[in-house]
Every structure is written in structure tokens, then in C-alpha cells.
């Protein structure tokens, strides 16, 4: 087992100015927000340019990083002292952060470009782009910061951007509610993250990653300043934060509602990048998790539970975006599972995160293209037969579909297969459940493709679908290319694992990925996926799809209602919460209010009474000065005699 390498202090070169990646989109957001309506005409272009510029910087920094020997590929860039003696602001350019930066700026730029077309009829397009730029800046700060404090600032920043963008059409009550829900549920997770950071601070007295490596954790445990219980608690609290941001059980409920936002937002924030921040957090905090096997086990359990729950939800949704959202939950579950499996898992988790970023963004944008064509209809029961009228969208979506179900040789096949195999070696139960999840993926994704692009046309009367403009289809094509080849490139020869090693460590035994493996697990997975797809064909491809959803079995209703997640939240938290508040209000009025109001009234009353001294008469002021002077003289004399 090879540990992560030391962090070097960097100066000069492109890495030295990597803060530009954050500064440029932030500048874009500032100009667009402060410039107001004046920037309406060219605002979207500025947004795209800033995002592209950040991408260029990221690529240049990546190239420069590759030019360094592997042992030096963790470069810290000091920016300034933020809180003297407490935290310095700085960036860490290492294989892990640069992978994220490339994904965020690359996919982000494509989605920026796509949005020019998608939002072309929206009067607030400029505001939309300013939020998108704000998001890119915050997300880059999250992944590039060299300490947990900067990560937290970015973490809250993406939360804010997500809130603003989910509620972008705030005139729709559902959108406003969804935005609020996302914010509140995330608060629970953020609270966990905060307490984890407080604990880290109280033990280590630092937030910087360079002081929080595996060595530091082991030293602290050997020295007795960090007990096994504390490190487990840190791990679990970090996981709670990750669950909130990445929509993992039990904090998953906001993601489905978040689909109220414009589709490019769903693609960028709620599929490709922000929701994967939890995975980043877990991998970045590997030193803590590796010292806390219990926490690691919980990570894998949460991952598996979510990957199944998301897949089951995805099976029953008729809303194309919600179906994709369930699938996102499920895929992040895979990543979380990988992130709980140590260095081998990290590499597969991050690789899956990157390929997923491509194919899921690809499909979300495809769904957006379909909605664009169908007057914003999201119900798949009113689609059907769209293949003939929008070929580019259909083909690119189909590529994304093949990638996500793990069709051999495409991106998702390698990365997901890697996670499943690693999980299998680790714990057979988890492994087989992950295989089951793959089968479900085969079903629900095939169902989506058949209902949307094939079968009879069940369009609304006024629907005249057409292919989207090229500003939308070109990003689709580019993303689908990533969906085809990226997985094989990253996984074969353990290319990505070796690249990532300086940041997360390298396992002693490397896996041996093949172009097309024929192990038991691999075959079982493929078989289950094929069965799932065939079943979907039988139900939704060959058979008629009713335009109104049938009542469905118990299981369907269960899935349709998001596994009763909301009902559970309501029963467990909301209603008792309401009762609690009512009881609290009762007691508050009777008891505490007496005290608090007494206190407030006391302060207010004192204020009022003392205020009367402020008569406005200069003579009484002079008297008060004289009195004060007498007291000061007396006090000094008194102190002097002591």
C-alpha cells in the first residue's frame, strides 16, 4: 500500500494562478448580478466565456501537473492568510482536485452553451447565467481549497446556487417549495459537516489537509489525543454532510423535488457535479475513514441502500426528469459504495463519478431537448416515437443509456463494474445487492428509452416536436463521445488509479481490468441487465403504454411515492415537529416567554428608563459628566489606596 504523497508549496506557472479558475466565473457572476438589465443582451455570452476561460486554466494546470514527477503532484498554492493563526486561504492542485476541476469546467461549459438555446425564450436568461457562473465558482472553491474551511465556504456556496437555481422560476409555488426543501434538508447535513469540522479543529488545531493526512491521524491516535470513538464520530458526521449534499439515504428527499429547476440546472448541479460533492468529501477525508472501519462500513451500507432505493424509485416515475433523478441517486449510491472501500474503491468511485458526469448530463440535456420540443411536457406517457423526429437527441440519449446500464465497452461498463467487483471482494452481500441494482438500472433506463423514443406517438394535440437548434445538439454530441470512450480510457491499465495515487494512495495489489471480463460477477451483472431491459421491452416497448398511469401494484405505488420517504419525513419529523412546536409555543407563552420577554422587556425597559436621563438639557448632561468625573476620581483614589 502506497500512501498519498506529501503536499508541496507551489509558486509560479499556471498552477500558481489557478485561483483564476474561481475568480473568473465569480467575476462573471458579479458583473451580471450588479450590471442588472444593462447586461441582458450579452450576459449569456459573458457567462459562457467565463466558464470556458476557467476550463482553459484547468486544462493548462492539468498539463502542468502532468509535467511534474508523480511524487510531486500535490501542489499547494498559498493565497493569503484568512483568519490569522486559524486558517490560510489556499488551493490544492492534485490529481483528485484537478479531475473535479476538469469535469466541472468542461461539462459546465457545455451546459452553459446548451443553456443559451434552452433559455433563449426566458426573460431572465442573464440572471440564470449569473447563477450558473456563481455555481461554477463555488464548486471549484469546494474542490480546489486546500483546507476544510475553504471547502465549507464552497459547500455553502453551491448550496446557495442550488437554492437559487431550483427556485429560478419562483413564480411556480412548486419550484419555490422545492428550493426551500432542498435548503432545509441540506441544513441537516451541513450541521453534521460543521460539527465534524469543529471536532477536527479541536483535535488537530488545523483545517489544512496537509496537517490532516493519514500520518497525522495515526500520530494523534497513537499519542492519545484522538480516540477511536472520536475518529468514528468524525467519519459519521462527515458522512452526514455528504448524505445531505449527495442526496443519500436518509437525506435523499430533496433531490426529486429539485427537478423543478430548469433542466440545464438539473444536468449540471443535480446530476454531474454538486451532488457528487459528498463523494469528494468522503474521498478527500480518506485519512479519517481509513482509521475508522465502522464509519467506512456505514458509508458502504448507505451507498448500497441508496443505490437500490434510487433504482426502485426510478422504475415507477413517469416524469422523465424525476426518473433521471432517481437514477442519479442510485448512481451516486454506487460512488458512495466505492468511496467506502479504500483506495481501490476511491479510484473507481471517482472514475464512475466522471463518466457519470458525462452520460448523466448527456441524458438530462437530452431530456431537456425533448421537453423543449414537446412544450415542456415531462410526462413520458405523452411521449413515444420521438426517434423519428429528433434523431440527434435520440441517438445521443441512446448512447448515454447504453453507458449507464453498463453495456460492454462503453464508459459506465468499466467504472460500475469496477465498483461492483471491488465491493464483492470486500463483502459479498453488498456486492450482490449492487449487482441487483445494476439489473434494476437496466429495467428503468430501458423503460425510459422505450417510452420516450419508441412505440406509438402519444403526443398532446398541440405538440409539434422538432430537433433542437445546434447550440443544444452540439453539447449533446460532445457529451455522448465522453459517454462512449472515457470509461475504457480511464480504467484499462489502471490508468486513472495510478494518476490518482499521489492524492489518495495506491493499493498494494492492483486490480486487472480487461476490455471485456468474463468473471462470474460480470456475467451475472450483464445477465440481470439484459433481463431488466427485456422486461422493459415487454412492458413498455412491445405493449401499449396507457396515457394515464394505471394504479399499479403495491410495489409500484411504493416506488412512485418515493418509497414513502416524504411520508416518513412527515410522520417522523414534520408532524412531531409541529406538535413539538405547538407544545413549545404553549410552554413558551406560559413559562419561557415570561422569562425571555421579561429579559427583553428588562433590557428595553432599562433602555427606556435610562433614556429618560437623556433629557436634552445641556445642564443635566454637564451634571452627568461631573458626576462621572467624581466617580472616576473616587475610583482611582480607592484603587490607589489599595
Amino acid at each position: 500500500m502506497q500512501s498519498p504523497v506529501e503536499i508541496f508549496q507551489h509558486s509560479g506557472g499556471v498552477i500558481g494562478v489557478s485561483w483564476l479558475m474561481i475568480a473568473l466565473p465569480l467575476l462573471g457572476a458579479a458583473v451580471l448580478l450588479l450590471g442588472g438589465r444593462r447586461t441582458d443582451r450579452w450576459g449569456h455570452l459573458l457567462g459562457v466565456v467565463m466558464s470556458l476561460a476557467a476550463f482553459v486554466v484547468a486544462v493548462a494546470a492539468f498539463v502542468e501537473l502532468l509535467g511534474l514527477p508523480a511524487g510531486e503532484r500535490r501542489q499547494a498554492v498559498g493565497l493569503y492568510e484568512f483568519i490569522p493563526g486559524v486558517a490560510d486561504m489556499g488551493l490544492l492542485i492534485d490529481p483528485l482536485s484537478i479531475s473535479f476541476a476538469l469535469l466541472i469546467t468542461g461539462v459546465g461549459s457545455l451546459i452553459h452553451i446548451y443553456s443559451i438555446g434552452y433559455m433563449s425564450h426566458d426573460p431572465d436568461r442573464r440572471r440564470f447565467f449569473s447563477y450558473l457562473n456563481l455555481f461554477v465558482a463555488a464548486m471549484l472553491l469546494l474542490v480546489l481549497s486546500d483546507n476544510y474551511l475553504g471547502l465549507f465556504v464552497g459547500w455553502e456556496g453551491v448550496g446557495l446556487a442550488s437554492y437559487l437555481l431550483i427556485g429560478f422560476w419562483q413564480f411556480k409555488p412548486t419550484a419555490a417549495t422545492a428550493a426551500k426543501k432542498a435548503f432545509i434538508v441540506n441544513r441537516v447535513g451541513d450541521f453534521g459537516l460543521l460539527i465534524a469540522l469543529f471536532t477536527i479543529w479541536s483535535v488537530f488545531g488545523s483545517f489544512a489537509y496537509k496537517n490532516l493526512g493519514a500520518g497525522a491521524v495515526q500520530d494523534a491516535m497513537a499519542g492519545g489525543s484522538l480516540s477511536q470513538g472520536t475518529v468514528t464520530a468524525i467519519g459519521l458526521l462527515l458522512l452526514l454532510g455528504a448524505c445531505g449534499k449527495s442526496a443519500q439515504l436518509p437525506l435523499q428527499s430533496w433531490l426529486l423535488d429539485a427537478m423543478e429547476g430548469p433542466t440545464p440546472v438539473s444536468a449540471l448541479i443535480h446530476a454531474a457535479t454538486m451532488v457528487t460533492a459528498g463523494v469528494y468529501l468522503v474521498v478527500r477525508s480518506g485519512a479519517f475513514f481509513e482509521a475508522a472501519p465502522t464509519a467506512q462500513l456505514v458509508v458502504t451500507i448507505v451507498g448500497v441502500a441508496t443505490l437500490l432505493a434510487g433504482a426502485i424509485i426510478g422504475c415507477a416515475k413517469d416524469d422523465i426528469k424525476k426518473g433521471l433523478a432517481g437514477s442519479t441517486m442510485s448512481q451516486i449510491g454506487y460512488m458512495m459504495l466505492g468511496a467506502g472501500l479504500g483506495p481501490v474503491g476511491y479510484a473507481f468511485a471517482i472514475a464512475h463519478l466522471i463518466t457519470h458526469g458525462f452520460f448523466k448530463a448527456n441524458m438530462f440535456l437530452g431530456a431537456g431537448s425533448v421537453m423543449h420540443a414537446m412544450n415542456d411536457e415531462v410526462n413520458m406517457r405523452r411521449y413515444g416515437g420521438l426517434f423519428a423526429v429528433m434523431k440527434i437527441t435520440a441517438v445521443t440519449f441512446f448512447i448515454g443509456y447504453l453507458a449507464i446500464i453498463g453495456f460492454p465497452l462503453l464508459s459506465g461498463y468499466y467504472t460500475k463494474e469496477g465498483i461492483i467487483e471491488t465491493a464483492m471482494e470486500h463483502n459479498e452481500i453488498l456486492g450482490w445487492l449492487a449487482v441487483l441494482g445494476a439489473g434494476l438500472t437496466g429495467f428503468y433506463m430501458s423503460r425510459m428509452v422505450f417510452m420516450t423514443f419508441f412505440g406509438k406517438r402519444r403526443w398532446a394535440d398541440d405538440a409539434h416536436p422538432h430537433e433542437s437548434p445546434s447550440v443544444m445538439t452540439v453539447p449533446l454530441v460532445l457529451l455522448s463521445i465522453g459517454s462512449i470512450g472515457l470509461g475504457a480510457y480511464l480504467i484499462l491499465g489502471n490508468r486513472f488509479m495510478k494518476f490518482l495515487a499521489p492524492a489518495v494512495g495506491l493499493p498494494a495489489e492492483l486490480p486487472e481490468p480487461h476490455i471485456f471480463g468474463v468473471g462470474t460477477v460480470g456475467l451475472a451483472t450483464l445477465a440481470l441487465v439484459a433481463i431488466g431491459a427485456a422486461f422493459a421491452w415487454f412492458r413498455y416497448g412491445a405493449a401499449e403504454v396507457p396515457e394515464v398511469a394505471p394504479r399499479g401494484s403495491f410495489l409500484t405505488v411504493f416506488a412512485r411515492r418515493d418509497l414513502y420517504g416524504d411520508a416518513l419525513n412527515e410522520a417522523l419529523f414534520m408532524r412531531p415537529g409541529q406538535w413539538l412546536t405547538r407544545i413549545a409555543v404553549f410552554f413558551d407563552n406560559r413559562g419561557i416567554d415570561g422569562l425571555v420577554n421579561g429579559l427583553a422587556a428588562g433590557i428595553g425597559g432599562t433602555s427606556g428608563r435610562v433614556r429618560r436621563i437623556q433629557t436634552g438639557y445641556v445642564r443635566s448632561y454637564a451634571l452627568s459628566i461631573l458626576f462621572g468625573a467624581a466617580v472616576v476620581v473616587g475610583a482611582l483614589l480607592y484603587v490607589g489606596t489599595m
Partner: protein
Amino acid sequence: MNGTIQAPTIEYALLSPMLIVFGAAIIGVLIEAFAPRYLRKSIHMPLTLLALLGAFATTILGAANGLPTSASAMGAVAVDGPALFVWGIILILAFVSVLLINDDEQFVAQAAAVPGSSDEEEAVRSGYAQTEVYPLLLFAVGGMLLFSSANDLLAMFVGLEVMSLPLYLLCGLARRRRLLSQEASVKYFLLGAFSSAFFLYGMALVYGYTGTVSLRGIGDALGAGSGQETLLLIGTAMLGVGLLFKIGAAPFQAWKPDVYQGAPTAVTALMASTVLVAAFGAVLRVFWVALGGLEWNWQPVMWGIAILTMVVGAILAITQTDIKRMLAYSSVAHAGFLLTGVIATGAAAQNAKALSAILFYLAAYGFTTVGAFAVVTMVRDAGGEAGHLSRWAGLGKRSPFLAGVFAFFLLAFAGIPLTSGFFGKYAVFAAAVSGGAVPLVVVGVVSSAIAAFFYVRVIVLMFFNDPAADGPSIAVPTVGTSAVVALAAAATVVLGVFPQPVLDLADQAASALFIR
């Protein structure tokens, strides 16, 4: 001593900031005397700005040339690190305030006219303007420079008076609500004179004990330690009263709300920022340089005053209904926070830490204050500025940008992170903790919490209440006013997000402490 008088040595280069400001003030008086009325303002404005800029440039040059190790002008003035830093702040803030003052709407057409009389109408109609404002301001600024760097008590007293007298006049020049303004002016004058008498009497008593007025001499004499302790203690108390009056510490704060409210808001902005800076310069010099050997005596009393000041400022601000009075009480509370830094003395390193914290706090607070008052000048209704808080309801709906900036200033006053106020408070409280004044910091944090209440209340009022039907209109700001708001907001952001350069500068200025 053969009947010849030795010419004093004056370090002109070092003292040039002060000399430039005073020189420009005198030229300003000549302009008032000789230039035709219609030309005066267009001469005053550039002259004043240039003088302040020139003084600032020479201050920087002085700092770049290395600090002298002994006092200048025959020991009367100490141009040391803290003095140069304080000068820099005062000059920038004064420069910014001049941009605010350059708004005729603020000032009376003819101060001598009886309010509401036909004389006044006549003066307004013929477009008179009281252009004496500019030289008065320059004299006041010059006084501040001397006050904050004086190295003997006599020079300090001269500085105090040169600073105060023009301010008394400036307070009475408001165009609207003239009676209130004149009342403020008289009150400020009477109470100011009263407190100056305390200062003077304290000086006499201290001279009686030590036989000298030089701060260094007093410090040395304390070391020798003999004679009438009582004389010295009473003298210390009296000096303290005179100085604490100027910073508005409780129980000497009564003038602040009345004067802040009555004065033209641009003048309030100047007073609230620069006078506090200059007065803290003087307080530190007197209590650390001259009376440092007596700290075991004055510290407990100062503890009491600091606590009282923080609590009184925070509590009384709650029931204020006028925005300017509220800001005045907030300024009282901030003076209390700063006093915790004055108390936090110890070894040289501790002193340097406390001094640097105070210097940073003054810079941060000064900018935010000028910005906040600049916003106040823009919210007007028929009778002038809309001072009553109820008139500010729903401002966020009418002009979200202005209300947003004001809310930001209020958050900075409250000391919310990512604003300059946070680092100011953090630095001062951290210095106080390491100086062993933990209970004081507890009181400080509690009063910050109380203070946050009334800051946030204004924000709630602006953003969550419905605007009054006949609410105030937002004056189209002059270029100067918008520049002031923008500059103050920028300073508040930059010092809150990226405070290091200024913290370093304050550290450098404070590292060698005061020269004696």
C-alpha cells in the same frame, strides 16, 4: 542663557502632513476673504482635496523613509509608527468626508440668518453657500493630526482645541432642521469646553506631581515615584475624563446622540469616524506612554468604564427611533469595544498586539461609519433626510441596492464574518483575551449580541416590512456621494475578506510601539 532665544529645531519633512493641512486651511481663510463669492467653492474643493492628498502622500513618504527614534519639534510631537498609521486613516477618511460635504443640500446658505426668517429665504434664493466649511474642516483635520501625535500635554491640548472648535461650528450649519442643528452646536461647545477644563485641570495636577508636561517626562517621573500620590491620581482621572469625553465613553457619552443627530450628516460622518480615531491615538499616548507606570491604578477604573460604555451603548441603542441617534449609540458601543484593547496591556509583544488590533479596528470602523452616514444622506423626504426609523420601512423594496449596501454596513457594525467589523472585533477581543481581560471580552460579546439585535432590526425593517405609502424618496446621489458609498463598501468587503495587508501594516506600525 545670555538673553538670546534659541531657535527651536523643527523637522519640517516629518511634520509636513500637518503643515500642509494647516497651510491649506490658512489659504482657505484667505480665499474666503479675497475671492469673489461665485468662485469660492470651485477653488476650495480642489484645494481641500489636494491638501489632504498631499498630506497623505507625505505621510506615506514619511513611513517609507523609516521612522525616527526620538520625538520631533523639540519633543512636542512624536511621529512614530502608530502616529503615521492614525494620520493615514484620518486623512483618507477626511478625504472621503469632503466628497460628502461637497453637497450644497447639506449646508445652510447663511449661518447667521435666523431660522425661518426672510433673511434666510433671501439667502437661499440668491444661492449663497457657507463655503467656510472647507477651511474649517482642514483646521479640524490639522488639529486631529496634532492631537493624535502630540508628545506633551500642552501640544495635545492645543491639538484638542484646534480639532474641536471648527467642529462646534460645523455642527451648526445644517440646512434643514436648523434649530436642532444650532442646539447641537451649542451643546457640543458647552460640554466640550467643560471637558476641556477637566483635561486642563488634570494636566495642571499631573504637572504639580511630576514637574513636566512631556509624556516621556511624566513617565520617567512616575518611575522615580515620590510625593503626593493623590495629586497624581486625581490628575490622571481628570485627564481621563477629558479624553474619554471625546471618544464618547460612558458616562460621558450624553452629547453624542444629540450632536450626531443635529449636525449635518456629512459632518457627522466626519466626526464619527475621524474624531474617534484621533481621540484613541491620544488616549493610547497618555495612558500607555505617560501613565504606563500607573497602569495598576487606572486599569481597574478603565475596566469599569469599558464595561459601562459597551453596555450603555448597546442597551440605549435599542429604543432609539432615529437612525442617526441609533448610529451614535452604536458608536458609543464601539468605543467600548476599542477600550478593551486599551486595557489589554502587558509585555511589549502584548502591547504591540493590542495596539495593532486597535489600529485595524479604527480603520475598519471608520470606513464603515462614513459609508453608513453617506447612505443616510441619500434617504430623504420633503423635510430633508428621513431620520425616523419608521420611514425606512420597506426601503429594500424601493431601492434594493441602497438598502442592501446599508444592510451590509450594519452587518459590519455587528461584526459578522466576511466583513471588516468581524476582524476588527476579533483582533481586539483576541488581544484582550491574551492580555488577561477575559471577563471584559465576555461582556463585549454579550453586548455585541444585544447590539446585533438593533442592527438586524433595521435590516428587517428595510426588507420585510411594507413601505409606507408616502415613504421617503431616494435622492439621486452626487458623484461624490456614490463614490463614498462605493469606497466604503469596498473597504468593508476587502478588509473582511482579505484583511492581511492592512493587518500587516497595522502590525508594522505597532511593532515599535510609541516613541517617547
